[in-house]
């Protein structure tokens, strides 16, 4: 699709890979900590389960991204000129407040 054209997936550089591995290790460490640090007065049962909030964050992000993009690609997304021609043309006022468009 169009996305792949605008964002060529270059092979990962060594430093980027190192950064990614560090990030994943940090996430693992956080979940490990969750086994020892937990709420003393959980607001609901699941909160005591180690890793609950990490799953919540990951699932939330995936559901939101997929769901919102799905909505955008089906009913919400419209051409930029949907309401009127040139309605999203950007014009910046200069410091004297005179619009350029």
């Amino acid at each position: 699709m169009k996305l792949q054209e605008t964002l060529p997936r270059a092979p990962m550089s060594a430093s980027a890979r190192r950064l990614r591995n560090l990030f994943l290790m940090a996430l693992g460490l956080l979940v490990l900590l969750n086994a020892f640090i937990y709420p003393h007065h959980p607001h609901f049962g699941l909160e005591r389960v180690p890793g609950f909030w990490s799953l919540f964050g990951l699932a939330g992000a995936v559901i939101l991204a997929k769901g919102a993009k799905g909505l955008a690609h089906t009913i919400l997304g419209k051409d930029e000129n949907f309401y009127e021609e040139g309605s999203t043309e950007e014009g910046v006022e200069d410091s004297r407040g005179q619009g350029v468009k």
Partner: protein
Amino acid sequence: MTDFFHPSLFFVACAAAVWVLPGRLGRWLPPVAAALAIGSVLAMQPGSYTRFNYLGLTLGLGRVDALSMVFAHVFAIQALIGFIFALHVEDRWQHVAACMYIAGAFGCTFAEDYVTLFIFWELMSVASTFLVWLRRVPASTRAGIRYFLFHILGGLLLLAGLLLRHQATGSFAFEATDPAAARFYDTLIMLGFCVNAAVIPLHAWLPDAYPEATVTGAVFMSAFTTKTAVYVLLRAFTGFEILGIMGTLMTIYGVVYATIENNARRILAYHIVSQVGYMVAGVGVGTAMTVNGACAHAYAHILYKGLLFMGAGTLLYAAGTAKLSDLGGLYRRLPWAFLWYMVAAVSISGFPLFSGFISKTMTITGAAEAHHTWLALGMEFAAVGTFLSVGIKLPYFAWFGRPDPGIALKPVPRNMYVAMGIAGFLCFYIGVQPGFLYRLLPNPVEYVPYTSWHVLQSLLLLGFTGLGFYLLRHKLAPEAKINLDFDYVYRMIGRLVLALSRRPVEQIDNWWTEFYNRAGLRGLMKVAGGSVWFDKSAIDGVVDGTAVGVRRIGRTATGAQTGRLQDYLAAAILLGLAVFALVWFTG
């Protein structure tokens, strides 16, 4: 009297001075007015000041208590930051509009009765409309008209509610309403407030108009309109359960749109809907803790949202566009703007050490402790979306993402960076010294943000949101599209009215032309021929020169009729204010 000097007076005086003084001098006045306002807020003592008796009503312009103080405090600070950010703007009307807008916000904050509140409420909506129009591009003119018409609707709801309420209770007092005893007129007032608080589905004016405002105007607008509405909701409608539900829906609704939007300033506008949702939910749950949370979040939000709009405004100012699909790789060329943007982005996302962490979690924990578990979970879900869209997506595609597309950048005035620096410092300071903010809150604070569990929970939530973005980063690439929202409804209503009224008007016009052609014209020509002869030979000889005089008056009259709606509105409002002032001072 010595304990209270109304901050609005500084801004009204400043607006008048900027109007008459030469531009270069006038620009320096608004920050001075804001500094004076900070001074007057810090010097205030609780009490009721500046009461008038007018037409048998007691109007109170100066109710100072813990609730109005916390909002006045941050309004004054944000006014200073905003005016420093706008220091380079030579268009004096922008400064005048911003001053009147802020004067309105302070007026609402200290209003003791609904009449006073309504006057300042309308002042805000008029002045803020000019902050949109003064961008002076066609898109902003149209968006400004829609914005203004929608706020008139909100104002009318409020007016109807307060008049009906007066009829039923005999009082204009602006006090808390008991949820169990709420009547129809209370609902009307609440709806009027909800328009300004951008409660869905009355919110569409916000993402419609804010991205079309001037670079500096959007910074002001992001701070005052919705937060004044949160203040009045807190004042009158604490504990209305419907607000708890609507607020939570707002938090989610805003982030869904923010995830798919392309324009950076529109993403931020949708995040206002989302963030104000936390405050509205706090009002709705209505415990001491969530009321505190709503106030704290309003305070923190004004600072970081202003900073986000300053960052996105800097992008727009320098690059000439705020569309993510046209930006990328700018962190090397605008490093300071990038840094301050990221401070605001981690603040709004609720990272430990930054201001959102100590305010957002307070509302969520408060809702959970009041056994509104679903509301709390909804707000946590919205927190995921906040970090996903404003914390990662926007910066990724604006500042990193693609390689630098090589846009020519306009140099950024230094005062913009100074303002961002002040706001960024405050976001951090409140994050590490929550006591500074907690001391201002209306209820005693028992909540401790920095426990090992709260910190770990936030890091887990945000860290794995980051992982989610990492996995889906290609799917989230911005697209050059717009998204339908509820403004579709009122845009279409406008078109429908236009189409419906055009048909009969055209029809009547056709009939008239037909009639005129057949019956009137021939006879008229004959009469005209005669009268021309009479006029030329007789009258002009007698009253020579009047024709010239009439033409001159006609030209002046045409000058006043520019055919532009905003000129008429401005003239009507000026006239209205003049009449109002006359009645006020002579009555």
